[in-house]
């Protein structure tokens, strides 16, 4: 009985994890240098930013929303944080702290704006965040005068290349911390349960006396927060702040979330799933490159695998239901 249950658990909760493991094994067998510690470190480095954004995106999608502005807001956040970071006449620790606050702050403000406008006027988040996508991008270009900002303090830049135990990149640890925080909030806090509840049936939640607006705004703000953190991670990793970065980040984060099993219409999904979704995307990008596929073939294969992973997942769910 018990073992059957745990098989079920693996099948249901860990399904996308099995698919990830499967992909990893395939690449380990076929792609030279894939299964090396160094390469895993690389992959972790590469998925960190998408993972961080996806944590916030999961909150928003669980509510039945979407956030298209994450890429632009990330760019804007790097610009502001970057400006602060290179301010002269400031001690480096002070500059770093203020810079992080600036980046995270602007992320949260944009998130608040998204949440507030969509809740206050009952506008589809798609529209509000599409608007914000343009606003933040324009602002980033304007403020930076379309120029990349660089020349951060060396100690700052160094931190981004530090690997714990020589394996775990610092920014991956930050991303992991966000995943854990996100998971914890969703699973164990009233706020988290409200996110699910609202995504299930907002009307019912409202009728039982909760102020759904607050929770929704908070979810968008949280998404902005993770984008702000991702902006700092970006600066740590690439040592630049740029007004043009982040195109496609929105689709990547949404893809990670949805591949991870979160329903676009809200109410269903998990943070662990999202993390695994981000891993799958990262491993695919890395593995297909190592296998030596040409660019076009890589793109085509990526497309098929994205679909295929989710198709497999539906079979797994079916099977899992049957063994109950």
């Amino acid at each position, binding site marked *: 009985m018990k073992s059957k249950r745990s098989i079920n658990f693996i099948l249901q909760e860990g399904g996308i994890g099995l698919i990830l493991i499967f992909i990893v094994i395939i690449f380990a067998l076929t792609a*030279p*240098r894939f299964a*090396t510690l*160094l*390469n895993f470190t*690389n992959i972790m480095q*590469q998925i960190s*930013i998408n993972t961080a954004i996806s944590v916030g995106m999961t909150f928003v999608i669980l509510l039945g929303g979407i956030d298209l502005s994450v890429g632009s807001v990330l760019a804007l956040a790097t610009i502001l944080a970057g400006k602060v970071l290179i301010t002269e006449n400031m001690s480096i620790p002070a500059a770093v702290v203020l810079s992080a606050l600036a980046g995270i702050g602007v992320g949260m403000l944009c998130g608040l704006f998204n949440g507030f406008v969509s809740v206050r006027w009952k506008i589809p988040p798609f529209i509000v965040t599409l608007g914000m996508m343009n606003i933040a991008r324009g602002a980033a*270009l304007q403020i*930076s005068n*379309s*120029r*990349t900002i*660089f*020349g951060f303090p*060396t100690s700052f*830049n160094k931190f981004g*290349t530090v690997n714990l135990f020589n394996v775990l990149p610092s920014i991956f640890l930050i991303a992991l911390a966000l995943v854990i925080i996100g998971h914890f909030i969703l699973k164990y806090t009233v706020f988290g349960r409200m996110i699910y509840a609202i995504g299930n049936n907002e009307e019912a939640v409202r009728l039982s006396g909760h102020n759904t607006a607050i929770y929704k705004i908070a979810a968008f703000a949280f998404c902005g927060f993770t984008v702000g953190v991702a902006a700092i991670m970006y600066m740590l990793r*690439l*040592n*630049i702040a*740029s*007004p*043009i*970065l982040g*195109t*496609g980040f929105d689709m990547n984060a949404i893809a990670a979330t949805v591949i991870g099993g979160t329903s676009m219409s809200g109410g269903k999904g998990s943070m662990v799933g999202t993390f695994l979704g981000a891993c799958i995307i990262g491993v695919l*990008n*890395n593995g297909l*490159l*190592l296998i030596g596929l040409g*660019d*076009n073939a*890589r*793109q085509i294969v990526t497309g098929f695998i994205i679909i295929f992973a989710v198709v497999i997942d539906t079979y797994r769910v079916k099977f899992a239901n049957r063994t109950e």
Partner: protein
Amino acid sequence: AQDDKPVVGVVLKSLANEFFKTLQEGAEAWAKEDGRYTLDIKGMNSETDIDTQLSIMDTFISQGVDMIILAPADSSALVPSVVKAQAAGIPVVNFDVRLDAEQLKANGLEDFLFVGPDNEEGAYLAGMALAEKIGEGGKVFIIEGNPGADNAIARKAGFDKAVAEGKLELLESSTAHWETEEANALVANLLTKYPEVQGIMCANDSMVLGAQKAVEAAGRDDIQIVGFDNIAAVQDLIKQGKALATVDQFGADMVKMAIEVGQKIIDGEIEPLGWEKTPVKLITIEDLE
């Protein structure tokens, strides 16, 4: 037999971009003929995809290739990767887009070698061709590339220089993000705003295609257009007299030169310093006959 040939890792920007595709094919043809090297050419799906470039760099480093030649997607962000490769004993030759001088300096690579064209110079040549054609006081637009992109900035600077030197009147400078369709709409709208315009400078040839159609749709045959990249479709326009000029940067030669310079560095013949300029050439109807 192939295995003992030195492997050169080539990191390109988007292979979706016609310029890089031409460059890739040219480089491959050259390598086959030359026979000394095995080329491993990798690109990304989008020009701003810094991430993929970084992972390509990582991949090359862990593969231990003999030399990397790099066309960076971002002039600052790739510097740490270059440092990493050098530290691993792999010489890196920077080509096409010059790595940022200050960022290099901050990483202890002052005046790092660059093999590549002078984008600003090229744009200036195209701009001057336009200026000569329409004469002093001629009214022009600049259609810019992606804001913030290094070559977009350089080309804009070149156009600006030509505007100043040719005593042109700049009516408007706007971006169409390198894209044909966007350039088409942008130019159509600008034509409404400034019917008096006489010339258009586009930061790449894809935008020339869009701009030219907008001019044609407006029934104007008195507007001169110049571009950059020398793609086949624009050569065709130049031959038909629908575009004035474009600029060729001889991508394949650039790769060849970068590899040869890299070889010299390995052989200890030269220091990896300075700017090894590759030619830029104005292409007009005379060059195409």
